[in-house]
């Protein structure tokens, strides 16, 4: 029989050995070394790849590292603290972004697993993505931002220059205006991740755009601003100059560290309350003009076609919206009794004033509790105590924002926008979501309005 002390020594020795392996493994978050050199080596000796150490995290959920699980974690030391590390989540957590299967993964979107989220912040690694030419890889040391057009003084800034300006931080949601586009004419997706997962909240840090534009000086007659990304799509959108000067900013930080590559590293234009697409990622250029540029995205794509054949253009603001994230689609209630109904509410026009919840399919509404902080243009967490009696029912939530706007039913929205095809007008679906609860506790996505 092995004495406990030997067991401990063996375990520690194994952990130290495992850590050394991870530090040589470019796929591991513990990797210490030159990834580029590794890449070159591996290209030069592709055949030798099989001889390299296998990633210790081969079987781990994405973003986690697997460790041995002792029978009682209080009876044996845990794994040692590395001298340098980048923390990972627990090996028992498995939530991932999931991609909507568009024809090509280069122009596609992935959705946040809202059903698993708590609080209001979206973990950076789970923030939804929407890119039109893949995720650009940009060396910040070589990145420049150009400001030109109808300005008195054109400027070119390095990332170092931009970080010298006075900065601001803001908790803010970003939502793709295509969020829910499959749900106009009939319920299509099974989970809240796929019905609502194109919205996420982060704390963003950067320079006010007004500071940058004032540095260059707007020429007389300046009315619009073109923002261009440095990705393969060279994404461009025109922004009214009043909005640009009011509250836009150039973010280089997200949740306390540099902005993630898929969110636009090293620089993203933040346009508070406006559709995700106009928050240009990998920002490289700002051109001031007297007219909108009428780019592809603001003419042929992010416009809302109505049944009369006319399309609404520059519909930038994301209207008030909410969704119950638990219980939600594909969950099963464990019999009658107490449940905390919880979800998220948000509005592009300001703060959430109130969220109402209905547990009887919209016949009666009662006020949900809002978790502080309740911030303008930010996800707001609501909670509602509910005792399920075991009968079939429909759960709904309704957001009222600080302007008094009340989140519409799908019937109200369709009464105004119509249904021009199965996708309706595609963008800006902010209607009340319905979750059906069956007698067996199964929760499903339904239309009930």
């Amino acid at each position: 029989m092995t004495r406990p002390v030997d067991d401990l020594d063996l375990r520690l020795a194994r952990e130290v050995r495992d850590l050394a392996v991870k530090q040589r493994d470019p796929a591991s978050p513990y990797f210490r070394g030159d990834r580029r050199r590794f890449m070159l080596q591996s290209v030069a000796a592709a055949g030798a790849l099989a001889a390299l150490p296998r990633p210790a995290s081969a079987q781990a959920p994405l973003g986690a590292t697997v460790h041995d699980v002792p029978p009682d974690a209080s009876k044996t030391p845990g794994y040692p603290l590395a001298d340098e590390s980048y923390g990972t989540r627990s090996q028992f957590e498995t939530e991932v972004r999931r991609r909507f299967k568009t024809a090509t993964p280069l122009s596609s979107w992935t959705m946040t697993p809202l059903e698993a989220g708590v609080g209001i912040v979206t973990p950076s690694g789970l923030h939804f993505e929407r890119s039109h030419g893949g995720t650009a890889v940009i060396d910040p040391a070589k990145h420049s931002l150009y400001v030109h057009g109808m300005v008195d003084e054109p400027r070119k800034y390095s990332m170092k220059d931009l970080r010298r300006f006075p900065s601001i931080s803001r908790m803010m949601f970003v939502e793709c205006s295509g969020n829910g586009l499959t749900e106009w004419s009939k319920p299509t997706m099974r989970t809240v991740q796929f019905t609502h997962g194109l919205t996420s909240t982060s704390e963003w840090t950067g320079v006010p755009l007004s500071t940058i534009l004032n540095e260059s000086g707007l020429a007389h007659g300046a009315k619009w601003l073109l923002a261009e990304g440095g990705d393969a799509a060279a994404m461009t959108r025109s922004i009214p100059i009043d909005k640009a000067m009011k509250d836009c900013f150039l973010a280089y930080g997200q949740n306390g560290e540099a902005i993630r590559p898929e969110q636009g590293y090293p620089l993203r234009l933040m346009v508070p309350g406006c559709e995700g697409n106009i928050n240009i990622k990998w920002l490289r250029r700002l051109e001031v003009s007297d007219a909108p540029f009428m780019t592809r995205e603001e003419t042929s794509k992010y416009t809302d076609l109505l049944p009369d054949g006319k399309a609404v253009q520059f519909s930038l603001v994301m209207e008030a919206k909410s969704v119950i994230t638990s219980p939600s689609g594909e969950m099963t209630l464990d019999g009658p009794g107490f449940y905390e109904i919880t979800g998220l509410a948000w509005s592009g026009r300001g703060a959430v004033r109130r969220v109402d919840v209905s547990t009887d399919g919209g016949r009666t509404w009662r006020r949900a509790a809002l978790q502080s902080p309740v911030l303008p243009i930010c996800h707001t967490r609501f909670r509602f105590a509910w005792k399920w009696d075991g009968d079939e029912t429909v759960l709904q939530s309704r957001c009222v924002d600080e302007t008094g706007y009340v989140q519409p039913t799908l019937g109200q929205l369709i009464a105004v926008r119509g249904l021009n095809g199965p996708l309706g007008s595609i963008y800006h679906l902010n209607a009340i979501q319905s979750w059906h609860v069956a007698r067996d506790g199964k929760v499903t996505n339904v239309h009930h309005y």
Partner: protein
Amino acid sequence: MSTITEIALAVAAAALATHAVAADMHATAYDFGTRPSEAELGHFVSPLPDGRGLPQGSGSVLEGKSVYQQQCASCHGEKLQGGIGDRLIGGRGTLVNDDPTKAPVKTVESYWPYATTLFDYIKRAMPMAAPGSLADNQVYALTAYILSQANIVSDDAIMSADTLPKVEMPNRDGFIPDHRPEHFPPVSRTPHQTLAISPAAK
């Protein structure tokens, strides 16, 4: 005097000094960064609908057909009917529609309001695997070819900074400004529906 006030005064004095030095230029408060050269800015193309910003050069329908077949057809289809990439032509008359089962066909021909957008988008973002690789003449030629296949310009059209902004797109007047926030009718007067998710849907 508080330290904060002293700092504020010092900053103000520094800003005034900058003014004095650069009296003939726009006054930058911080003076970070540099002034980019015309050549640097010349790399960027973003034309306006009236043609400002379009580069020199031109291209014909015939030249465009050849470029299209080499660079575009694999994604957008031999007959511009779409594939991995968007359908480019057809669809006129499908935009007026309130049938939830019938999708409108939104293409360059039926939906795009400005021809300059076509040049801008191809120049910046196409072909998908090698964006920015086409010469201006090739982009003008492609623009001419797509517009001719869409029956918007004739087969002998030449597209250039002069001709492209003059092309009248069929859906030029198809767009209206944002009128939101919308005012909704009472729930009692709107459509009512109860629909379950289809068992086959994933």
